């Protein structure tokens, strides 16, 4: 079975939630829509306190090409445009707070009916940006930018990411089981934009029923690839390597080897946006972990506060850690006021048993991290550089190729927070570069 070099086998923990069908979460009264839910340039709020907004109405204006707007998840009144805690940085960020009016009334003209296969690639891309689409696997890179590679980097391989390699998460899995047509049609639109006549939907072998569903439904131009179960199979570069055998060069991007990857959820959102003009205002999120009473896969509106989600899922039992995303690359939360974002693939409520907060010791030189690293780096020495703040040496050892998957940290017997050291070194490098640019 196809796979990549390195990687780890953490316990899947998906049984908690994978057999739960998607449940639509009832609308709450307050929605906190952060204006920056994407990688790239910020977006400027277009509304102010007191404005009435409708479901799907645009709330911000993107400032630049690598930027997308956000939209109102439901109809109501703008209570304030204030700073709220951002789940990714943990710092305060601009947020449009909407008080719902309970009508959930669509913005004028939405949803519309049109044939996306009659539209040009340019128009489709414009719609994709206008509907605020970003990578929903968690990275939140603006989709229209990814689908607009420069002319000198032609794409010949398009892979739909149905791997969902993170433990605990089952959102993409349920989407593939229950709404495979949205994914397939979205894939076809993207194929049209890229001018390709074939595509691959890659699914990890631990989802045999999803593979079967897909295999039965895909048109002949799309193949379903079953991949060996290993973390981080769902990471872009590893997915490309497993499916096509190509290796993205150090410091490079998938387009350098003619490949492009999109999350399955993103493909479904592309279909919604192109065929019915629906902006990205809701997503499927797995609320799971030992600490939540009723684990669920919820269809939830962007901006729903965390405490409402927890309440809907029965409340908490024992909580040590709350994570947005998966347990490997997700971000721990400290504020109960954070809200669901476009990239929130999962909300994990982890118990003390499921969390590791032991102190760490010196590197014992066992080399497990080196075996585990999917990018063939040396996490051991990077962690030592991290302890001493030696970012220049770390860059020499390919620090910037690390995408912080956490395989090394998971394997380390000395419990070293290697990813934290890598993030720290990258911060030092950014600061030094900024200082140098100023000078």
């Amino acid at each position, binding site marked *: 079975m196809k796979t990549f070099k390195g990687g780890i086998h953490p316990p899947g923990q998906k049984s908690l939630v994978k057999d739960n069908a998607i449940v639509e979460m009832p609308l709450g009264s307050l929605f906190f829509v952060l204006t920056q839910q994407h990688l790239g340039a910020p977006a400027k709020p277009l509304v102010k306190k007191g404005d009435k907004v409708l479901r799907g109405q645009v709330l911000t204006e993107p400032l630049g090409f690598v930027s997308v707007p956000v939209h109102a998840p439901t109809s109501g009144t703008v209570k304030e445009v204030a700073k709220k805690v951002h789940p990714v*940085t*943990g*710092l305060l960020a601009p947020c449009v707070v909407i008080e719902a009016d309970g009508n959930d009334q669509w913005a004028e003209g939405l949803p519309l009916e049109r044939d996306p296969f009659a539209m040009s690639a340019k128009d489709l891309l414009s719609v994709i940006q206008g509907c605020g689409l970003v990578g929903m696997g968690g990275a939140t890179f603006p989709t229209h930018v990814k689908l607009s590679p420069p002319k000198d980097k032609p794409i010949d391989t398009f892979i739909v990411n149905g791997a969902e390699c993170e433990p605990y998460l089952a959102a993409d899995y349920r989407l593939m089981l229950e709404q495979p047509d949205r994914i397939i049609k979205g894939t076809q639109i993207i194929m049209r934009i890229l001018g390709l006549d074939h595509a691959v939907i890659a699914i990890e072998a631990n989802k045999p029923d999803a593979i079967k569903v897909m295999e039965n439904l895909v048109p002949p131009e799309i193949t379903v690839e079953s991949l060996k179960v290993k973390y981080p199979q769902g990471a872009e570069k590893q997915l490309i390597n497993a499916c096509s055998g190509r290796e993205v060069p150090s410091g490079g991007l998938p387009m350098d080897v003619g490949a492009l990857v999109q999350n399955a959820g993103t493909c479904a959102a592309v279909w919604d946006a192109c065929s019915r003009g629906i902006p990205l205002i809701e997503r499927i999120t797995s609320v799971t972990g030992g600490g939540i009473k009723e684990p669920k896969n919820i269809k939830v509106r962007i901006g729903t506060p965390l405490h409402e989600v927890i309440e809907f899922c029965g409340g908490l039992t024992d909580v040590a850690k709350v994570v947005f995303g998966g347990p490997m690359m997700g971000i*721990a939360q*400290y*504020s109960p006021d954070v809200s669901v974002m476009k990239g929130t693939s999962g909300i994990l409520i982890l118990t003390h048993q499921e969390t590791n*907060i032991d102190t760490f010791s010196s590197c014992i030189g066992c080399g497990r991290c080196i075996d585990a690293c999917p990018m063939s780096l040396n996490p051991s020495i990077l962690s030592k550089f*991290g*302890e001493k*703040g030696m970012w220049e040496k770390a860059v020499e050892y390919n620090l910037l190729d690390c995408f912080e998957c956490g395989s090394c940290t998971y394997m380390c017997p000395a419990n070293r*927070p290697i990813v*934290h*050291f890598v*993030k*720290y070194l990258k*911060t*030092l490098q950014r600061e030094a570069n900024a200082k140098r640019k100023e000078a």
Partner: protein
Amino acid sequence: MINAVILVGGIGFVAALILGISAVTFAVKMDPREKAVLDQLPGANCGACGFAGCAAFAHELTQNENAEMACPAVNEEALQAISDVLCRELGGGTPMIAFVGCKGTPEKSITRFSYVGPHDCRAAQIVAGGAKACQYGCLGLGSCVDVCPFDAIHMGEDSLPHVDDLKCTGCGKCVDTCPREIIRLVPANANYCVSCISRDSAKDMKAYCQVGCIKCRICENTCPFDAIVVVDGNAAIINQEKCRKCGLCVSVCPTGVIEQLHVQAKAYIIEEKCRGCSICAQVCPVDAISGKPKEPYVIDQGKCVGCGLCIEKCPADAVERLSI
């Protein structure tokens, strides 16, 4: 016997000849003063002077006629010795020491979450902006302690760093290391400093810190010398050049955020010299001096804060400091 002498002497002579010729051929001009200067420098290679190490700075001082004394760690003696070697006067500049601008102990300030990770403030800063609720507060993990080349700063029981002002040379390494710029350099003879750099409003601060500067401006209004000001939403800051060390701001500050660095010796009036001109009583900021005209004045030791204004202003040199 004689052979031995001739042989050894012969080898020595030949060797000396070769070496003598080489000494001339391979001669390297070395300024002997450089070594003398290097000996006077502390040798910690802390880099505060802006050069790679003490050797590099010694080289600069010796070769460059106009080089200024940039080493914060030389004492008076060493400075004099270097000036003698180089035959030019090297100014010392005001000695500075480090001051930690935060009083937020775990009891007096709120921690948002329990942080797990490297024991380094700069690494902790990247996790949601640090565990402390106040974005301007000390994280207490001791990066400043680790970086000090003079062992002059230590983490206290209260999770705050404390500067040993006898050892601190003002090199500034802790200042550069602190990710929140909480530590700053103040003149070594400063007596009062505001121990907070928060730019948050009093309303925000109330939620997470009991000992921060709430910008109430009571200190600004009380100070008789305009030495302490609250500007643009920043925490109060004391202009050390204007500060007369009377301590009035400390007594009126509601949160106790102004710290006293040294205990000052109080003043007393020498009866025999006092002409009773009353100038001291007029300048005293705490009204500690009283007396009748043309009679020796008296300083109330209970009120005196040791600011020294009376000593400065007395035309008869009749006021002196008590030894501590």
